[in-house]
């Protein structure tokens, strides 16, 4: 119980720090959003005083001193009211975010779980058959694939399977002719559009899980209790799964928790390449359009979901590994 309270306290503190960081970041930038918009306009010609006033009124000049701004920011965060988007006017930031969230969570979430399960299993096999081709093949190809830039894998798949062979659609999360609805036809269409982004994320994230599990397991394989279990004549599968892998998986669970939290952040690069309307693509559009309210809300949500996932993993870790509780 003390362990949980301690972790909870730390979680609240980290949450506050992240929320505050999100408040400070935009204020580090030179000038205000209005200045940036005016600078962009002035490239096309002189900006009149009236235009300047209009832009400042539209984008909102921060009112009051920094402390008052902070209080009103905290109020925004608690009420989840992030105002109106600049680029997708007149939609509110909350509307945009809740529209994009399901796409990212389903696509990236499912693929993250798949990659973790498959990667861990391969890693166990590789460590157990160390020194054979069953180790060398996944280790080498895994470390090669994990250095592929995400967006490059995405571009290549898109080019060959989308543009050259016309096997998969080239953009979006569903066909322009269908509308999102809870029907079988839409589900099939959405699934069809999700395959290429899914393969990209799977291919590039699998390697990390394989290597992490393999290296952790090689260390546990050298431990005395594994040797002891082997000497007792236990079946090699029992030793591998119940003794070595069970202990080696602990550090990887932390990574898995963080990856699950990172799902919301999505894969900005992959979503951008495939024009997939998730959170990452929204963030990209917010940045390109200098849509500060949307950007701030998205970054906050991405950070908070990782923090929550991290907290849950900490709690789970305490249950699984009694040593961390003391």
């Amino acid at each position, binding site marked *: 119980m003390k362990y949980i309270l301690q972790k909870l306290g*730390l979680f609240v*503190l*980290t949450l506050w*720090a*992240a929320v505050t*960081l999100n408040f400070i*970041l*935009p204020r*580090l*930038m*030179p000038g205000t959003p209005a200045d*940036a918009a005016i600078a962009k306009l002035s490239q096309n010609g002189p900006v009149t005083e009236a235009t300047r006033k209009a832009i400042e009124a539209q984008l909102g000049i921060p009112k009051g001193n920094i402390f008052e701004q902070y209080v009103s920011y905290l109020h925004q965060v608690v009420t989840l009211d992030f105002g109106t988007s600049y680029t997708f006017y007149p939609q509110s930031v909350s509307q945009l975010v809740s529209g994009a969230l399901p796409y990212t969570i389903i696509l990236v979430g499912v693929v993250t779980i798949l990659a973790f399960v498959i990667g861990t299993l391969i890693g166990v096999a590789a460590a157990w058959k160390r020194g054979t081709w069953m180790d060398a093949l996944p280790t*080498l190809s895994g*470390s*090669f694939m*994990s*250095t*592929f*830039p*995400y*967006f*490059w*894998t995405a*571009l*290549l798949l*898109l*080019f*060959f399977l*989308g*543009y*050259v062979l016309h096997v998969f659609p*080239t953009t979006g999360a569903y066909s322009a002719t269908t509308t999102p609805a809870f029907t079988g036809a839409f589900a099939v269409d959405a699934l069809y559009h999700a395959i290429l982004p899914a393969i990209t994320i799977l291919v590039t994230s699998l390697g990390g899980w394989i290597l992490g599990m393999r*290296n952790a397991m*090689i*260390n546990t394989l*050298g431990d005395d209790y594994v040797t002891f279990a082997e000497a007792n004549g236990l079946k090699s599968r029992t030793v591998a799964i119940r003794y070595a892998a069970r202990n080696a998986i602990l550090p990887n669970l932390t990574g898995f928790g*963080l990856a699950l*939290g*990172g799902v919301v*952040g999505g894969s*900005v*690069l992959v979503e*951008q*390449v495939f024009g997939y309307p998730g959170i990452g693509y929204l*963030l*990209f559009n917010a*940045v*390109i359009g*200098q849509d500060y309210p949307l*950007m701030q809300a*998205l*970054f906050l949500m*991405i*950070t908070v979901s*990782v*923090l929550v996932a*991290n907290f849950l993993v900490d709690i789970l870790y305490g249950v699984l590994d009694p040593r961390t509780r003391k």
Partner: protein
Amino acid sequence: MTSTQMLKLDDPAQQKQPGPLRTIGRMIRVIWSNNKAKLGMIILAIFLLVAIFAPLLAPYGAQTNTFERNADASPAHWLGTTAAGEDVLSQLIYGAQVSVLVGFVAGILATLVAVAVGLSWGYIRGFGADVIGFIVNLFLVIPALPLMIVIAAYLQNGGFGVIIAVIVVTGWAWGARVLRSQTQSLRGRDFVTAARFSGDRAGRIVFREILPNMTSLIVGSFFGAATSAILAEAGLEFLGLGDSSIVSWGTILYWAQNSNSLLTGQWVLLFAPGLCIALLAMSLTLINFGVDAVSNPRLREGKSK
């Protein structure tokens, strides 16, 4: 590590440790004995040579745009030309300079921060350590790419220096955590206790006694940081958030996507820069297999196992 400790036991008067050059030489031998690391070092050396001798190797200037646009491969342009009429091969060769530079500069800076934070975090105890731990964990959990994108967006068009700064800010925390746990385990060793009893200041103990025993971990975290720096720079440039006036592998991909090379079928424009990024990043990862083997003999290959 073992040999230095043995040396001390045999002859307590002899405080002198093997010179840094010999330590590095021994490390390179261990790394070279690992086949994966050997391959990585060869690939890295090729990229280094290409980056250094780019002006001699490139057939044309990186931004000479007087050629036919969107041309396919020909004897004059081995990889064709871009939509703006630049020679793709020359751009690739000059692009190596940017990636190598970003990898080394951002990698070294991130490692310096990681060493300073990680070692002091591991050595001091009490409230100070908790505060450092809190800050490191905050930087560890905040997703790096969104943070980089947001910072890059706020400091728009800040140029090359800003990209490096952004990468360093988001890239030091992992190394700090790894170095901290090793510091914690070393600070209980006898030679550290001996140094403390002989009245050495904390700074000297941390950087002269503990640090030399972690060389391979530091080198490992440098290669790790450099790899993610190269990938991060390419990603930011690809999104158009970097310095689009320079010629780098990321900007080649950015212009390729924005000039619809996917539609025109110029797949070389997509394939070549990405392959270079992947190969360079992979060479560093492969070298790290060898570096891991220096600190963890269980991971060694072949006779030295």
